[in-house]
């Protein structure tokens, strides 16, 4: 491949980590900033603090008020977003590469000098309430969130948008305190991919983020999950079925084996779930399974949405397919999966945004970045015996089920 990728990394004196991969064939540059300020840090009576903070930090920073902040980014041509995940406040953006330095300058002010104006706290809270209410209308999301809470427990299963009562109680001092204790350079990583000049980027980031206080975010206590099944009664056309069972986290040696097994279930049009549930039986329009990895734990999440009268059959067929998976996968299935993963990696070469996001994710999960070549090798080296041995040792036996719809379903045999 021409322009073989090069990876740069640097840790500044204050602990901030900068990662970069030049993609000189692009005209864009993209960045991801991970701040240790996710919703896992929301205090119990303040669910939504990280989410509210994400809104507040965009209401003025450095020398800009909230309008100038948005206008400056528009003039730079930045496509950006700020959101909270379980672990992080995530700032991501893509710009024409000539505007990268100035754009990072704006976001350095967001991180180091946010205004957090008390006069706008009520508006920011209203924004959060709107988001929470809109998510109530997203039935698939509601069912999946209930499942994640059941599987991971609190706080790892949380929905970052929080709860209305929690947000109502938050004071401006709490928002300021949250920024002060979590916007710390010790666990912050910035990744950049695209048409970039490494020495210049290193200088700029070092200068722009130098005021960031050092230190790390406080540790979080994790409570045990409450595994089992749950039905949420709702007068809907479809029943939403969500299942979760244990799997390997991204940092574990078994990750690619587990990923291979899930891929056979759900990647592509010839995958088992798509074929057995949709193509052969016409039971639903949407069905998928995905390996969802947190830092030190993971699960396979499976979803299907189907008309209430066919929901039981859909659940039964899905469970049968997971039970069948214990018998192993075939050589052809693995070969197809490898081509698909390799193709996806090459396609990432056309997107600075997705490359920057993967680099930051790698750093968080592994403490280093996997080059695309390394991922390609790991996938290529995967053998049928590897995947089948993994499935023998880790059969999908126990599973949490959440359904949302007009009627509860009978949980099939084999699912506790």
């Amino acid at each position, binding site marked *: 491949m021409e322009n073989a990728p090069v990876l740069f990394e640097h840790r500044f004196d204050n602990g901030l980590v900068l990662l970069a991969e030049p993609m000189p*064939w*692009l*005209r*864009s540059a993209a960045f991801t900033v991970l701040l240790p300020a996710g919703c896992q840090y929301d205090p119990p009576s303040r669910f939504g603090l990280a989410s509210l903070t994400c809104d507040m930090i965009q209401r003025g920073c450095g020398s800009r008020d*909230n*309008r100038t902040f*948005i*206008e400056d980014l*528009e*003039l730079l*041509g930045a*496509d950006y977003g700020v959101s909270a995940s379980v672990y992080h406040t995530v700032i991501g953006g893509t*710009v*024409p590469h000539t505007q990268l330095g100035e754009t990072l300058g704006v976001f350095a002010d967001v991180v180091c000098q946010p205004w957090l104006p008390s006069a706008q706290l009520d*508006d*920011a*809270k*209203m*924004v959060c*309430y*709107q*988001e929470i*209410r*809109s998510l*109530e*209308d*997203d*039935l698939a999301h509601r069912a999946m969130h209930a499942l994640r809470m059941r599987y991971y427990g609190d706080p790892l299963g949380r929905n970052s948008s929080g709860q209305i009562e929690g947000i109502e109680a938050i004071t401006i001092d709490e928002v300021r305190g949250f920024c002060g204790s979590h916007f710390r350079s010790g666990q912050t990583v910035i990744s950049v991919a695209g048409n970039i000049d490494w020495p210049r980027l290193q200088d700029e980031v070092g200068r722009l983020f130098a005021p960031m206080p050092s230190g790390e975010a406080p540790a979080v206590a994790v409570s045990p999950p409450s595994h089992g099944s749950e039905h949420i009664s709702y*007068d*809907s*056309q*479809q029943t939403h079925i969500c299942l979760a069972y244990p799997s390997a986290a991204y940092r574990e040696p078994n990750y690619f084996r587990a990923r291979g097994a899930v891929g056979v279930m759900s990647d*592509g*049009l*010839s*995958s088992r779930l*798509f*074929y057995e549930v949709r*193509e052969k039986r*016409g*039971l*639903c*329009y*949407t069905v998928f399974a995905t390996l969802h990895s947190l830092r030190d734990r993971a699960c396979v999440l499976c979803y299907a*949405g*189907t*008309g209430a009268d066919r929901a039981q059959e859909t659940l039964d067929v899905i469970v049968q397919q997971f039970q069948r998976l214990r018998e192993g996968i075939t050589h052809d299935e693995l*070969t*197809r999966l490898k*081509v698909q*993963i*390799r*193709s*996806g990696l*090459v*396609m990432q*070469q*056309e*997107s*600075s945004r997705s490359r920057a996001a993967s680099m930051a994710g790698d750093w968080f999960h592994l403490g280093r970045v996997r080059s695309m070549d390394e991922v390609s090798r790991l996938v290529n080296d995967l053998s049928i015996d590897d995947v089948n041995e993994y499935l023998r040792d880790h059969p999908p036996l126990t599973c949490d089920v959440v359904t949302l719809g007009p009627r509860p379903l009978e949980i099939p045999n084999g699912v506790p």
Partner: protein
Amino acid sequence: MEFRSHRLDNGLSILAECNKRNYTSAFGIFVRTGARDEGPEIGGVSHFLEHMVFKGTPRRTAEQVNLQLDEMGSHSNARTSEDSTIYHAAVLPEFQSPMIELLCDLMRPSLRESDFETEKKVIVEEILMYDDQPPYGGYERAMAEYFGDHPLGQSILGTVPSVEGLTPESMREYFRRRYSPNNMAIVAAGNVDFDQLIADAERCCGAWRPQELGKNIRPAAPRTGFHLMVKPQSAQQYVLQLSAGPAAEDPQRFAARLVTTILGDESGSRLYWSFIDPGRAETAAMGNYEFEGTGLLMTVLCCAPEQTQDNLIELRRLQESAFREGIKQRELDLAKSKIVSEILIASERAENRMFGVGGNWLKHRPYLPSDEVAQLFSDVTLDEVNHILKQFSLTDCTTLSVGPLTQLSMAS
């Protein structure tokens, strides 16, 4: 980068924006047919046919089709709109010929009766899925109210009864009429070998026989009015507002896109500052829809039910002030900067360029490289933007609201 085009004797168009610097190749078969070409008696047939195309051909079973798409590691999909049906796949360049051979074969599907009945169930599930999702069929109802009996008011998915009433014969008849080579194009972008593309297309599609195509472009007579759909379970209230905009062939479409960006972009627009920043709405946005012969501007709102009446009044106030006072130069400059950058970033992906090239073909427009599109936006003047607001009144509209409210009135 180089643009190449060719036409087979049977009328099939082949277009490609070839760029050896891309790592991937994107291919699409574009068919100028969609819901507007159906008529109520076969409502939903275009979209149903899009699904049936993947169910196999005289040379392949459905399973073989899916296997082959996966064996090439393709990112493939299909979509149906009011006026187009597109089958597309992005692959590594080494799979160009087998992918073209497969896509072309799919365009002559078997349409077997047993597959038809199984797939009908999937389509019904898709309709039920959208019935559960905001705005709960509101888009289809708003289009129907706005366009009346004009074909653009026809629902893309159809309804459960219309889909259940479809027969394999009616689908085959529609297929013969619309999937004619002179109504189709093979479009490619990225790392593409164009000479090979022509050779493969000739081999796979050269024997297709063209049909006489009827013209179905009659002028729309948009209607205005206010409609309320009650959905008691919904937490939020949703509003869709449709008013006239430039048609696909109208050069004013660039100015109109700038107007919707200035007034209704998701960030930094007038709607943003009035509704999103203060938390009065979860969504407040505007978009352009361009069809042959007509176009429309759509405004959408999603907010708490109790805020909806006030928000409708505020929306009307903003529209009237835009009409009276026009747009400021600073707003235009910001919108241009935003759009030009979006075009540049999007153009890096072969797949996006394929949709750009194909989109122009669908609308009978000439090819435009992305830099020229960006330039056309940059060249728009303040007068042209303000003229849009005078020519296309935002307040002459169809408004539809869906949600728990049982009473709501249009601001006047």
